[in-house]
């Protein structure tokens, strides 16, 4: 029998505070002891995680698929690169403006999404992701492509005590990525646990019923698309902050597919899933890139280089079959054998007593024991 912990009871709060404290300590420890290259890797993993969190809001909770999220990341990255280099904008202002642009483009893409379902929506967003590099190549000359937030354009503020030396800069970008990831997570978590979050999931589960309950499908779906696009934009801005150079191939459909794989690996429609998935995906990918063999007997272009992405794709597909709710679903199942959190029982005092003729004897403890 697993140990039961009551939701919002002191032990539950303690466990939560402990979890946050451990994570914060880990983040601090990494910042103070990791090599700049490792910090760079973690920053990249966080960047991927932000995009996966964005996609989770849209696909995991609202049931709308997008293979075009790389486009939003690209839009915000180029917005930042261009405005900071050519108009001398403050890099944080460029972030805000990029997010707004992504939100608006997301709304616009969300409009066709109203009429399209499943594979058709996937196709439209796929087309956007496909067209984007062409547009980027056409409108961006060499100078623009080389414009990122590198060097002196995005410097650690003095209050951090960090200089713009290479190691300090790695620490600074690492913290930026961590903070943006935490913010993205908190936004999606808040949404999920609120009235709007329930509406999002209701729309995913049964559109007609959701509308009958009073959920405005058009508004809900387009705004969700916009918010998700803006969060993906934050991921793109982080990319512009870290890289020395961007070009039309920086944000292709392969990036979108990476977001999807990370999300499903970690567990769609769970809050931690996209983050866990992104980290595992990133570091397994990183490992395979240097350690995977080259298999010449494979057909086509995959025979030419290491089989890293081929292997990783296969691993994710097999994994999703074994654990349809991803790593987080799998971990939750294991944890549930040891600990269960029983929801706060329903209030017993009754608002309109005349209504309640048959008060059920079942206590909350009994009902959770049935689970």
């Amino acid at each position, binding site marked *: 029998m697993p140990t039961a912990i009551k939701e919002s009871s002191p032990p539950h709060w303690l466990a939560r505070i402990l979890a946050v404290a451990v994570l914060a300590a880990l983040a601090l420890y990494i910042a103070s002891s990791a090599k700049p290259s490792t910090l760079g890797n973690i920053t990249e993993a966080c960047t991927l995680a932000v995009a996966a969190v964005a996609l989770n809001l849209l696909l995991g909770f609202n049931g709308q698929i997008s293979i075009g999220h790389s486009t939003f990341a690209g839009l915000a990255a180029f917005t930042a690169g261009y405005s900071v280099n050519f108009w001398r904008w403050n890099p944080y202002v460029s972030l805000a403006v990029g997010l707004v642009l992504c939100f608006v483009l997301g709304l616009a893409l969300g409009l066709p999404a109203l009429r399209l379902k499943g594979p058709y929506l996937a196709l439209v967003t796929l087309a956007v992701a496909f067209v984007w590099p062409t547009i980027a190549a056409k409108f961006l000359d060499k100078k623009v492509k080389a414009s990122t937030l590198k060097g002196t354009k995005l410097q650690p503020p003095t209050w951090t005590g960090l200089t713009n030396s290479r190691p300090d800069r790695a620490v600074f970008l690492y913290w930026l990525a961590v903070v943006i990831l935490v913010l993205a997570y908190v936004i999606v978590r808040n949404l999920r646990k609120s009235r709007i979050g329930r509406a999002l999931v209701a729309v995913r589960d049964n559109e007609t019923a959701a509308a009958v309950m009073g*959920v405005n499908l058009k508004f809900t779906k387009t705004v969700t698309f916009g918010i998700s696009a803006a969060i993906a934009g934050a991921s793109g801005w982080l990319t512009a902050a870290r890289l020395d150079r961007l070009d039309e191939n920086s944000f292709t459909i392969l990036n979108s597919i990476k977001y999807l794989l990370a999300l499903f690996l970690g567990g769609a429609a769970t809050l931690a899933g996209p983050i866990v998935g992104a980290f595992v995906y990133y570091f397994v990918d990183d490992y395979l890139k240097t350690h995977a063999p080259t298999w010449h007997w494979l057909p086509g272009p995959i025979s030419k280089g290491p089989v890293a992405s081929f292997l990783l794709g296969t691993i994710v597909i097999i994994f999703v079959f074994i654990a349809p709710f991803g790593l987080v679903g799998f971990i939750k199942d294991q944890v549930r054998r040891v600990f269960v959190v029983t929801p706060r029982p329903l209030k017993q005092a009754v608002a309109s007593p005349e209504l309640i003729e048959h008060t059920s004897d079942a206590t909350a403890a009994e009902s959770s024991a049935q689970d």
Partner: protein
Amino acid sequence: MLDVQDVSVRFGGIVALDGLSFTIDEGQICGLIGPNGAGKTTMFNVISRIYDATSGRVSFHGKDLLAAQAHGIARLGIARTFQNLALFPTMTLLENVMVGAHSQGRGGFMKSTFRIGTAKAERDLRDEAGDLLRSLQLDHLAFRPASGLPFGTLKRLEIARALAARPTFLLMDEPASGLTHGEVDELSETIRRVRDDFKLSVMLVEHHMAMVMGISDKVVAMEFGRKIAEGRPAEVQNNERVIAAYLGTSA
């Protein structure tokens, strides 16, 4: 209160509703009967604005219902249940009922994103949803997801969810299907109780004749999208066309 005038609905060549008219008064329970395919569910879908009427008018408390949007219906005080269940399977029973109250809530994307000043409303909503689950004897299942529970249980959940919208008019599409005899009697009791407690008008589609006739203040009988009888239960029950429709097409 509800005034349906000459409503027709066509799907390509199929005429699902053919000039249907009837009225329901405040506080009434109106039974809507007819063989399968008569157009009962289609009528519900027109009222809840899921289907567009090809022609005709529907007014509710004098307001033109057909000018409203599907998501605006709940706010006007109309809630419904679905014949073939339209629950949110991944959500718990409690959450299903909480979504039922969506039209009663405030707090859009902004408030939800920052979760400022929503705690009390959420708590109250949770308590209220809990009360509703209890009143339909579902409270012991509150934290179970809706998927996988027995049909009869989910039918009751549909009622709880509909009531969460604090409707003044409740449409129920075959609520007794899949229930045992004893459960049907209990359901009749529940519907009456709910009507009185919540001061509801009710429109009830049901094949269970004893139940409809026992509970309804008036009955509308349909066949092939048309009204064939309207009146007190006893009158409709003895109407020749109604008897013919039932002996002819279903039994």
